[in-house]
């Protein structure tokens, strides 16, 4: 099996703080991998490094066979990402957001129109394509972000807590769609979530990270067996302990709070 994501001895320091402490893992093509861990465990930092927006302190990384540090453009073409926070332009319409993405990724114009229309249809936004994103609900925005992430036919899809704050209908629609991508088009999916039942249901394999280290890896069944638990949630708590983690108030977190306050006016 070809590994689409391969990491060996990855370390990321922020000053004296070790955010990622020598982790290694590999995700084969077409697999759905859940990347689980408590707040501040290093999930988002790892995704940022894999997606070229943060440089690692040390370690060997390959994403779609390329080095994110030395060949960022090639790596960026190979993946699509749905960030934890919104990343759409509210002042543009749904279709304009797709169009902009297509232009940034160099999708040929004719193909762009066709794919954008098809994908908007898949995520149930065909009717709303000419509406401004600012009129969309949280679930609609998420679906649009997923459609947009797939526009340039990525081989890897990163999803950072994609279902946070969504209703059960939207969540199950999103996961069904993602499953289909993996099984029918061999898209490799790498996602984080705090919803353990989602990870249990959707993921082929699970990697658990805590305090910047990988503490367990395997299928949901094997993790449950190993910890003698009846659910993945129990297994997760057995592995990572009961301590509630303090999430660092980094700039991104502050912005998130600010945005919530802004929206809530």
């Amino acid at each position, binding site marked *: 099996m070809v590994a689409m994501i391969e990491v060996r001895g990855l370390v990321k320091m922020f000053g004296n703080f070790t955010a990622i402490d020598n982790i290694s893992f590999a995700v084969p093509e077409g697999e759905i991998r859940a990347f689980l861990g408590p707040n501040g465990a290093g999930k988002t930092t790892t995704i940022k490094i894999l997606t070229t*927006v943060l440089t690692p302190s040390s370690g060997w990384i390959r994403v779609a066979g390329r080095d994110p540090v030395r060949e960022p453009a090639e790596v960026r073409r190979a993946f699509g990402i749905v960030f934890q*926070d919104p990343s*759409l332009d509210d002042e543009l319409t749904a279709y304009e957001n797709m169009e902009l*993405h297509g232009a*940034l990724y*160099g999708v040929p114009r004719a193909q762009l129109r066709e794919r954008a229309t098809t994908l908007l249809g898949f995520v149930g936004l065909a009717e709303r394509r000419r509406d401004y994103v600012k009129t969309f609900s949280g679930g609609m925005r998420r679906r649009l972000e997923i459609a947009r992430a797939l526009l340039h036919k990525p081989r890897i899809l990163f999803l950072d807590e994609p279902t946070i704050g969504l209703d059960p209908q939207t969540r199950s629609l999103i996961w069904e769609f993602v499953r289909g991508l993996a099984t029918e088009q061999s898209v490799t999916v790498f996602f984080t979530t705090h919803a353990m039942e989602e990870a249990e249901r959707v993921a082929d394999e699970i990697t658990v990270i805590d305090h910047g280290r990988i503490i367990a890896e395997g299928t949901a069944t094997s993790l449950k067996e190993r910890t003698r638990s009846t659910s993945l949630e129990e297994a997760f708590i057995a592995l990572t302990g009961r301590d509630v983690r303090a999430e660092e108030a980094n700039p991104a977190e502050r912005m998130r709070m600010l945005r919530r306050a*802004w929206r809530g006016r």
Partner: protein
Amino acid sequence: MRAAAILWLRQLKRYARARARMVGSLGQPLLFLFALGFGFGPIFARAGHGNYLDFVVPGVISMGIIFTGVFGGIEIIFDRQFGFLKETLVAPVPRFVIVLGRTLGGATTALLQGLLVFIVSLIAGFHIHHPLEALLALPFMALIALLFSAIGTAIGSVLKDIQGFPLIMNFLVMPIFFFSNALFPTRGLPAPLKLVAQINPLSYGVAGIRDAFAGQASLGMVTDLAVLGALAALLLAIASYLFSRIEL
């Protein structure tokens, strides 16, 4: 280049759709135009300098341009806050191209804003010497727009949130505007003030616009354009360096 073009278009769409902002940012230059233009008119004429309205309109046009230009650049902060910035940062496009598209977009909207102020000035009684010669004001307006849009982009790349915005406006943009030849002639100013006004890049732009409207076009304008162009290019380079250092 398609990437730069779509980001340019985005800035234009956002500008055209935010009608309230367009009208709102006309307010300040118009206030200057009417309060100062008509208020100082009599004194200015008595001091033997001629028509103050005709003198100040180029300054007020450039005011509209620099404020819109800087604001357009600073919009990066909003993109950071509302998340869109990430979409451009993970795209397989060199950061320089992103900066170019954004800055040109910001500059275009600033130029449009300047033209809007110009049209209102004509209605208010501003006269131009010769319509064809007045066209020479356009490259000056465009370069002021580009320069200040690049300054805005550079600042927006460094500032993390909007709290720093008043600081930039009151300690950078306003002083650049006031300590130039935009509102008063530099002839006869106290030496330090005169020196500041003379090295202020905005002064070159305003002088060029003024000469073009007053029918005093000369070869010296080429030098002024070259200076402005070189500065705009330098600021664009600085902006793209600062933008390339943004980490999420």
